């Protein structure tokens, strides 16, 4: 065996050990990352899943004309002012007779959500024949009742409810007069002070309008800027300066963009506050650097030989860009934009400063209606004192994560699908 072979052989074992160790480090880091993700998801899903369901209470409601104060169901005015709360209270008193003093009556009335009277109104409107009759109806339970029903038997004694109320609820449950149903209003309602009535509907619609504005502005501007800088701009001090500043902008904390939006868009241009249009403008500023940088990277991957080939055939610079560079760079640009949009969707800080943190009950009808967005809604609920909002916050986070995961998956799929090899 020659000297070299001996030396090589001696070093081999050490080299393989190093390789193994390096691999182990890699696997370990991935493991830590996955574990963190797992903990996050278990926690959020564990807390949030219950918010997708809510409890109803069955009551015998008599829709008495006199108590309601209605003689014509077709009259919207009468419906709006009708005393639905009165019939519900009556029904509760009938269900639990013998509750006479005011304090206990108030506790009794608190079992049913204040929103129940609205659903009762809608039901009557849909079926006018109900008027004057008596009907078994499922009414939405108050959030505290809902929470109590959702807690396990073991923990119930610690629940923050009056003992009398607990007794009533147990009675209702034992009689089979409580029911757990899918919480559809969570997706359709706007925000509310009452957790059982609150939903992320207005936040989703607000996020949607904000994203539309952001996309419509940042994609064309970003792509145009990237194409100009990559293909047309001369290389000089000025373009270097622009390049450095685009990279700087990408690193600016997002709250600064919020301040900028406040100072420029609201104070200088007088745009209304709390509207998706304004949110979209601010998020455009924030997303632009990301889109410009990723688009430039995508343009750089287009081989120069393709450009030269087209130029040599007599294509003008614009034609080279439109016919060859843009189609080849588009997948990369789209991927970058989707990732930028996902970032913008999860952004909260700048929107707080431009008033999108407002309490919005109505679902916005357009980009100029006051609105809030998903992450801000999460922030608002996380701040709320009612216990039921804990689960709702987690549920809203689950919805936001679902959107983000969808967008990022779309980016990956798009890249795989449109990627061309040359």
């Amino acid at each position, binding site marked *: 065996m020659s000297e070299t072979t001996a030396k090589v052989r001696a070093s081999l074992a050490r080299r393989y050990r190093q390789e193994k160790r390096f691999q182990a480090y890699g696997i370990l880091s991935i493991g830590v990352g996955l574990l963190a993700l797992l903990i996050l998801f278990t926690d959020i899903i564990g807390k949030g899943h219950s918010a997708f369901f809510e409890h109803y209470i069955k009551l015998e409601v008599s829709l008495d004309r006199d108590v309601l104060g209605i003689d014509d169901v077709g009259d919207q005015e009468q419906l709006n002012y009708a005393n639905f709360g009165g019939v519900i209270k009556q029904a509760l008193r009938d269900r639990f007779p013998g509750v006479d003093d005011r304090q206990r009556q108030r506790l009794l009335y608190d079992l049913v959500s204040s929103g129940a009277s609205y659903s009762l109104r809608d039901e009557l409107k849909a079926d006018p024949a109900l008027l004057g009759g008596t009907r078994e109806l499922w009414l939405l339970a108050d959030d505290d009742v809902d929470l109590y029903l959702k807690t396990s038997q073991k923990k119930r004694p610690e629940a923050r409810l009056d003992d009398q109320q607990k007794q009533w609820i147990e009675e209702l449950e034992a009689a089979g007069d409580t029911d757990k149903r899918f919480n559809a209003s969570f997706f359709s309602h706007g925000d509310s002070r009452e957790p059982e009535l609150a939903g992320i509907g207005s936040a989703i619609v607000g996020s949607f309008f904000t994203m539309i504005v952001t996309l419509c502005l940042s994609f064309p501007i970003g792509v145009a800027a990237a194409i100009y800088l990559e293909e047309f701009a001369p290389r000089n001090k000025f373009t270097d300066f622009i390049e450095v500043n685009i990279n700087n902008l990408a690193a600016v904390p997002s709250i600064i963009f919020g301040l900028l939006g406040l100072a420029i868009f609201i104070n200088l241009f007088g745009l209304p506050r709390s509207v998706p249009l304004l949110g979209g403008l601010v998020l455009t500023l924030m997303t632009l650097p990301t889109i410009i940088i990723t688009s430039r990277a995508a343009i750089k991957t287009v081989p120069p*030989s*393709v450009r*030269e080939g087209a130029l*040599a055939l007599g294509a003008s610079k614009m034609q080279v860009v439109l*016919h060859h560079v843009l189609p080849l760079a588009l997948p990369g640009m789209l991927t970058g934009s989707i990732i930028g949009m996902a970032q913008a969707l999860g952004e909260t800080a700048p929107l707080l400063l431009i008033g999108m943190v407002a309490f919005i009950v109505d679902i916005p009808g357009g980009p100029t209606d006051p609105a809030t967005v998903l992450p801000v809604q999460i922030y608002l609920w996380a701040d709320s004192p009612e216990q039921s909002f804990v689960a709702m916050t987690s549920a809203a986070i689950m919805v936001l994560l679902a959107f983000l995961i969808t967008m990022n998956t779309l980016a990956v799929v798009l890249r795989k699908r449109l990627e061309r090899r040359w």
Partner: protein
Amino acid sequence: MDTARELDNRNRADDDAAKPLIDVEERSMQDTPYPEKTVGSPFVDAPKMKLRNVNVFYADNQAIHDVSLDIGKNEVISLIGPSGCGKSTFLRSLNRMNDTIDICRVKGELYLDDQDLYDPKLDVVELRARVGMVFQKPNPFPKSIYDNVAYGPRLHGLADKKYDLDEIVENSLRKAGLWTEVKDRLHSPGTGLSGGQQQRLCIARTIAVSPEVVLMDEPCSALDPIATAKIEELIDELSESYTIAIVTHSMQQAARVSHRTAYFHLGRLIEVNDTETVFTKPEHELTEAYITGRFG
């Protein structure tokens, strides 16, 4: 094992012996003076391209020094010379491809027929339609074969109807000797062809706009010998209708395809003559040194 070591030693001894030889050679070549004027016959009667005192600079570096040359109509002229001697730079200034390089400047008189190539009023798009170019590495567009060839004609509006365009595509592919191989898959991507087919596709694409001059920058350097032979055959056929200037590293190729040969050395045009003369009785020492393989 002992024999191996012996062999190794012998090789090393050979290397040592060879080194000074090369050094002497290089020194002697560097001492050889450049000719005052290009030797041989750089000019022809009624040239297609008339190039006088061409100087090309990259920022402060002069890449081409005072080159004067005529390219005759329907002739194939090959530009040969060691790497980095400026052949490609010179070729690229003939259809102003150097414009794409910011720091590159071209000085001198360059004429295509009576048209000054660097006339500020001349539209470079028009010029490139008249002077086409084929590159070293096949660079088909990532589009279908048909679209590759049809790209130029569409760009310049050469065909009004689909039928006319089909005809141009077919003719160009026929001239490039590719028609029979691809006629059944005109709409499959051009990038799926083999290297040699891709290069012929690029030639088809270039001649589809009916240029007057075709510039070829080492068109065969990325191809295997069989594909190379096909391209060389093609060049021969194309010379009937086009004027061709080809940069090549292969002297055999220059000898096979070209009518005249120009030898470049460090940015200077040393000698231009009939190909046969250059390869059999080179007039200048440097040309002789290069073609006999003493450096390169």
